[in-house]
């Protein structure tokens, strides 16, 4: 029963959406959205886009500085400022609220610094305390304001979860002002922000007022939080500061590209959030924006070309499989070498014995080679014949291995029985140019430390010959040498 009372007393959900329309079909709604006829919708959309861009730009700096949760603390810390700004004018005057919130946000940021400098407490605790303390103060103030005779119908409680529908012309002007200001600050002081973000020590050494730029950043962040409050609300503003830049961070290594991408993602999430909340008749805007941003982040997290989880997993998997194939090829070469390259095919049994594995495993590896066009299977899948490509790869791997062993014994003075393990790893990653260097350095030697022949370039590039059934293994490699 008390909960029912509570539900009745808090109508915040019902009004927290953009087009206050009765149930219409979602297609109709979509058409209305894209025709941009509703002025309230226009303001909401423009506002969402502006705040997305601003938050994306400024959030990039806190994400690279590992201060992401400063955004969270700051966004909660503005609440008492909002309440006091509200008390000052006794209405939802954007300017008064803006000033109050900015002052409170800056106070919060300074408080975090002060706490970490004067106590043993770590930064996370300081952030948590500022967040909770300021927010609790704000909640108390808000509840006191709502108790006032004039306070009930003012909608100050909308600041907790945001209401894009409430964005008016004045808010849009304020938002554009902040967006332009942050854009200007970032373009004018790009170098300074870059240095203070990545290497504040260096910044201090070259005489840069690092502390001042930190404060400027905090000020701009407070601005961004305040303009985003209207639409997203205190609780979720931090997501707009963190998520789009984190998605951008997955995609690039350079700050300027990250800024552009983060602004783009912010814009995207703002627009998608506004669209979704307009589409569904009862969806609040802020959470829609945040979920849109999270989806963008999820896509970047999984599928980013270099740092994505799936792409990295795929790269690692294909590397492991390549190494497996190369090891099989190497074993086939060893079998062929043991019988002086007489006869063409290698039977599965020989391969399995060589690799100390079962026939089944050898068959699986042979199929894998076949699939990659390194070998063909003959005699009802019982013998493996290398293709020219397979022969080249096998000989190259054996050459890499033996060259490296020779290099280690020869130039690094490592005992001959200690070099195999190392060569086993390096053989898969030596590039052609390094091999050339090694060959020159070792004077085109033909025998490895164990007395086995190192395949020469001529051996490797005997194109068109599946395997050399060569009678005399040439005593010297090309170029004469030792």
């Amino acid at each position, binding site marked *: 029963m008390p909960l*029912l009372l509570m539900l009745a007393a*808090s109508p915040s959900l019902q009004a927290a959406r953009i087009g206050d329309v009765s149930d219409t079909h979602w297609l109709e709604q979509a058409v209305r959205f894209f025709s941009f006829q509703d002025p309230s919708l226009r303001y909401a959309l423009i506002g969402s886009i502006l705040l997305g861009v601003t938050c994306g730009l400024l959030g990039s700096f806190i994400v690279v500085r590992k201060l992401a949760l400063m955004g969270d603390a700051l966004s909660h810390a503005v609440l008492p400022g909002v309440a006091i700004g509200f008390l000052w004018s006794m209405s939802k005057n954007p300017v008064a609220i803006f000033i109050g919130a900015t002052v409170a946000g800056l106070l919060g940021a300074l408080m975090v610094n002060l706490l970490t400098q004067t106590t*043993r407490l770590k930064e996370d*605790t300081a952030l948590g305390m500022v967040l*909770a303390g300021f927010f609790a103060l704000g909640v108390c103030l808000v509840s*006191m304001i709502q108790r006032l005779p004039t306070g009930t119908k003012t909608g100050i409680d909308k600041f907790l979860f945001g209401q894009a529908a409430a964005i008016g012309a004045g808010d849009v002007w304020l938002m554009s002002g902040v967006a332009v200001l942050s854009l200007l600050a970032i373009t004018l002081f790009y170098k300074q922000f870059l240095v203070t973000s990545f290497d504040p020590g260096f910044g201090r050494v070259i005489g840069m007022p690092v502390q001042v730029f930190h404060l400027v950043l905090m000020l701009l962040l407070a601005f961004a939080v305040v303009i985003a409050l209207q639409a997203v609300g205190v609780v*979720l503003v931090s997501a707009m500061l963190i998520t789009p830049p984190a998605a951008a961070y997955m995609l690039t290594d350079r700050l300027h590209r990250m800024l552009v991408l983060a602004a783009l993602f912010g814009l995207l999430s703002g627009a998608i959030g506004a669209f979704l909340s307009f589409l569904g008749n009862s969806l609040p805007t802020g959470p829609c924006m945040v*979920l849109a941003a999270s989806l963008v982040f999820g896509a970047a*997290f999984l599928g980013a070309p270099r740092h994505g989880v799936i792409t990295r997993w795929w790269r690692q998997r294909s590397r492991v499989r390549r190494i497996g194939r190369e090891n099989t090829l190497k074993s086939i070469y060893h079998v062929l070498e043991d019988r002086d390259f007489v006869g063409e095919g290698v039977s599965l049994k020989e391969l399995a014995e060589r690799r100390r594995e079962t026939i089944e495993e050898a068959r699986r590896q042979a199929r894998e080679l076949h699939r990659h066009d390194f070998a063909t299977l003959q005699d009802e899948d019982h013998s493996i014949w290398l293709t020219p490509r397979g022969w080249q790869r096998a000989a190259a791997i054996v050459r890499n291995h033996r060259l490296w062993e020779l290099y280690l014994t020869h130039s690094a003075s490592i005992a001959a029985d200690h070099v195999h393990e190392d060569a086993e790893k390096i053989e898969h990653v030596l590039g052609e140019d390094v091999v050339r260097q090694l060959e020159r350095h070792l004077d085109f030697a033909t025998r490895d430390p164990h007395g086995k022949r190192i395949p020469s370039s001529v051996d490797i590039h005997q194109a068109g010959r599946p395997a050399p059934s060569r009678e005399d293994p040439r005593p010297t490699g090309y170029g004469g040498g030792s």
Partner: protein
Amino acid sequence: MSELIPAFDWQQVVVSPWRDDPGTFFWIALMGFLVTVTCGLVGNYLILRRMALVGDAISHSVLPGLALAFLAAYAISASQQGPDVPHEDLRKPLLMFAGALAAGILTAVLIEWIHTKSRVKQDAAIGITFSSLFAFGVILISLFASRIDLDQDCVLYGEIGYVPLELGPGDWVPPSVLRMGIVALLTVVWIVVFYKELLVSSFDPGLAASLGINATLVHYAMMCWLSVVVVSAFESVGAILVIAMLVFPGATASMLARRLPAMLLWTVLQAALSSLLGLHLSLWLDCYPAGAMAVAAAGLFVVAWVAAPREGLLATWWRRRQMALEEPSIPEPPALGDGPMNPRSD
């Protein structure tokens, strides 16, 4: 201003509640104390492990778990008695615990996963995880508003004032106080039983690993317990008091003590004081009791920060001043010569 802050009336704010309606205020104060002490004890370890903000994250991200618990309860009841389910039947404490636990574990796993598997740092991972889950929860609630007996405001600041109203005719204790009491008791038992493991793994993960304590297990156990604490505190006091109490008592205690047992004792004291002070503050200013308790806890921390005997701002300032005054008695460093580089040369 005068209508915002009423005049302080000692009789009305402090004396009369306890004289006229002791039952009501006893339960509210007890509930506040149980929540603050439980959160404070767990928070001590969070602060030591530098996970203070993970607590903040979990207290937001249990929301979708709760929402799904309501939907599950609705589905179960609807399959038995048709689509019209009274709201009372939707509150299934066990399902809610399970939902919150699942959401809490999901949060911990997601945070770990994002920051170990990618270049995104832990702080950003925390921010992304909890905001996504919270947004998801809010959307669930607004999509199925008729079936989820929960709203965002109650999630934020709860309604501790309704606790005494829950007292049914045959009850000794309001059910939510009973639940919170059990959780508080279990927390104390948990800390006593696993005192050594928690201590070692919080202060010295390396030593803990060499002693054979499974750090991952301790971490996830901590996260699970945190979710349980959050969800049991949630309904009546809301996320705001939980977040505040996860940091303030521990931070206050660490200003006052250096050893863990002493810190835990200070935590209990701070919890008791802040719930009582907060209750009276809310009576005076007529605001949400949970918010007022959090403000009181913050106030107590500020007092400790300024006036703590050894670590406080005043003590530090006094020590510095004394040192500056006594400076001549400090043996001079060997002179490096009278060049301009030597600051003492003039």
